[in-house]
């Protein structure tokens, strides 16, 4: 019973975490024309916190102490705005209940399994244990794949350490929480013509089509999915709708904080960081000075990453050399084509493994044939080109046997990337509903 009760307490801890440092009701009181919804503030808080925790991970700081500070701060606001919180809870009662039931259903499955899946046991858990036992980034040196980014491990350790019974799996519920927060934030984007029940059904459908329980066994893909979703959400809000004045650099800061998480979550995140930089510079409706600011800040974050990796681990390493023997073998056209066929085959398999991709493609077809929505949304095409190009590039260049590597890794890359395109499904559903 205590294990089930600790799931509930961890959910409360996670909710507290996502209400710090920005309080939605306080902001609403101070800034009457606030553009964000409650769930967007939660997404923003998680992004800010992840960046704060990234800095903390370099210092010896008691994880319980950090939690107590967050708890005290958040409770202060809970007490001040308890009526508003209660009203919001009542207003969205069924949505909240659905969230709670989805969270519990997957959490109890994670708890029941208890064990870690392959990559998690092979290397992520070592990093988590270092942080759980009070270590810092400097203590990661010498571990298997010590050069892998550590942010997800730090957050995992944080929620493990601040749980009731201190069982490892409670830390992993963080990944479930942020995944669900992303999906449930769709609620505010769905047309008002949808009934509450229809909205909840749509959210559940998207959640169900995106979920792979295996990845909750300690993989970092849900963290990446969250980053992709947030980037798309803020990119769309800030740049496509062109709401913000040119002198306001807040949009750039938020989007930089989001893309910074990519670098510190997984190795491929460095390439995602670059791709999103290109996407921003090409497609954002922001003045030149804002773009220069974004570019300089991106270069700064990139150099900071390089500096940290060099300082702690001696170099920036990847699993394989970027230029290796395979790079030159690809000059043989027949060899190159045979590899492209294998990669394409597993791309298609991955789309069926994560059926959210089928919904994304269907949505694109429906939108394309029925409206001119995509005409000024070239960033979607650029996204497809750069992301899929990146996946092809890494598998074409790997010196490992791709018949072994592609089936076990490509689907995870494809899964995380779907987070950016969820809004297309929402757009398609809204258009269908509004037409009726």
């Amino acid at each position, binding site marked *: *019973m205590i*294990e*089930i009760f600790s799931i509930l307490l961890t959910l409360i801890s996670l909710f507290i975490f996502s209400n710090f440092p920005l309080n939605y009701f306080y902001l609403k009181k101070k800034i009457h024309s606030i553009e964000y919804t409650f769930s967007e503030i939660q997404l923003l808080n998680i992004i800010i916190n992840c960046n704060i925790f990234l800095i903390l991970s370099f210092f010896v700081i008691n994880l319980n102490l950090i939690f107590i500070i967050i708890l005290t701060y958040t409770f202060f606001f809970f007490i001040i705005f308890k009526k508003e919180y209660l009203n919001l809870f009542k207003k969205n009662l*069924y949505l909240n*209940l*659905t969230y709670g*039931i*989805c969270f*519990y*259903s*997957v959490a*109890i*499955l994670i*708890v*029941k*399994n*208890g*064990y*870690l899946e*392959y990559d*998690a*046991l*092979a*290397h992520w*858990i*070592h990093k988590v*244990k*270092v942080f759980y*036992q009070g*270590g810092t980034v400097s*203590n990661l040196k010498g571990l298997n794949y010590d050069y892998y980014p550590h942010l997800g491990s730090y957050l995992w350790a944080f929620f493990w350490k601040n749980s009731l019974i201190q*069982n490892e799996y409670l830390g992993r519920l963080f990944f479930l929480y942020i995944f669900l927060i992303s999906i449930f934030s769709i609620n505010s984007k769905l047309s008002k013509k949808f009934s509450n*029940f229809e909205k*909840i*059904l749509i959210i*559940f459908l998207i959640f*169900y089509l995106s979920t792979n329980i295996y990845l909750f066994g300690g993989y970092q893909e849900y963290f990446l999915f969250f980053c992709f979703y947030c980037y798309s959400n803020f990119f769309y809000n800030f740049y496509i709708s062109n709401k913000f004045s040119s002198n306001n650099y807040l949009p750039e800061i938020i989007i930089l904080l989001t893309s910074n998480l990519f670098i510190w979550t997984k190795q491929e995140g460095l390439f995602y960081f670059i791709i999103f930089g290109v996407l921003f510079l090409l497609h954002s409706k922001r003045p030149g000075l804002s773009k220069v600011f974004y570019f300089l800040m991106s270069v700064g974050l990139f150099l900071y990453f390089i500096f940290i990796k060099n300082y702690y681990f001696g170099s920036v390493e990847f699993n394989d050399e970027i230029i290796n023997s395979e790079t030159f073998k690809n000059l043989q056209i027949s060899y190159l084509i045979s590899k492209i066929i294998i990669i394409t085959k597993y791309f298609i398999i991955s789309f069926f493994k994560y059926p959210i991709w089928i919904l994304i493609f269907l949505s694109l077809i429906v939108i394309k044939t029925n409206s001119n929505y995509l005409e000024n949304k070239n960033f979607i095409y650029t996204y497809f080109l750069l992301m899929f190009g990146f996946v092809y590039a890494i598998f074409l260049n790997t010196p490992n046997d791709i018949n072994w590597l592609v089936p076990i890794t490509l689907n995870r890359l494809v899964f995380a990337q779907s987070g950016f395109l969820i809004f297309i499904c929402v757009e398609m559903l809204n258009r269908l509903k509004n037409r009726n």
Partner: protein
Amino acid sequence: MNSNNKLSFLIFFIFILYVFNAFTNSYIVLRENYQIRLIKGAGDCDKSGYGFYKKILHKFKNIDQNISVKNFNNFPSPEGYFYEYRKKKNTKYLILIGAEENELNKYLQDNFSSIYNEKNCYFLSK
């Protein structure tokens, strides 16, 4: 909200719980403790060999270093479950999980001797 809607939501909530097998999973969590579930999932002498490693730590309490593991089961080593960064990695002891006789012999010829074994899992010492 009318009672029909409430009923729809109730059925929907039960459906979610059913889809993710939450009823059975809750029952299992209530019935079996974490360690038993971990041994079932991560293996005793099979899979990752979690149970065997735990048994070694229980039987040989004087070892206060991280013990290396060689897993022949095509699963990762269970070291991560027990890893303590303040402890050194031990080269004197070695755990073999799922080792066939010929694989064991290689280590025995390399100055290791078997201290304890169960099925095809071995605890070796130099």
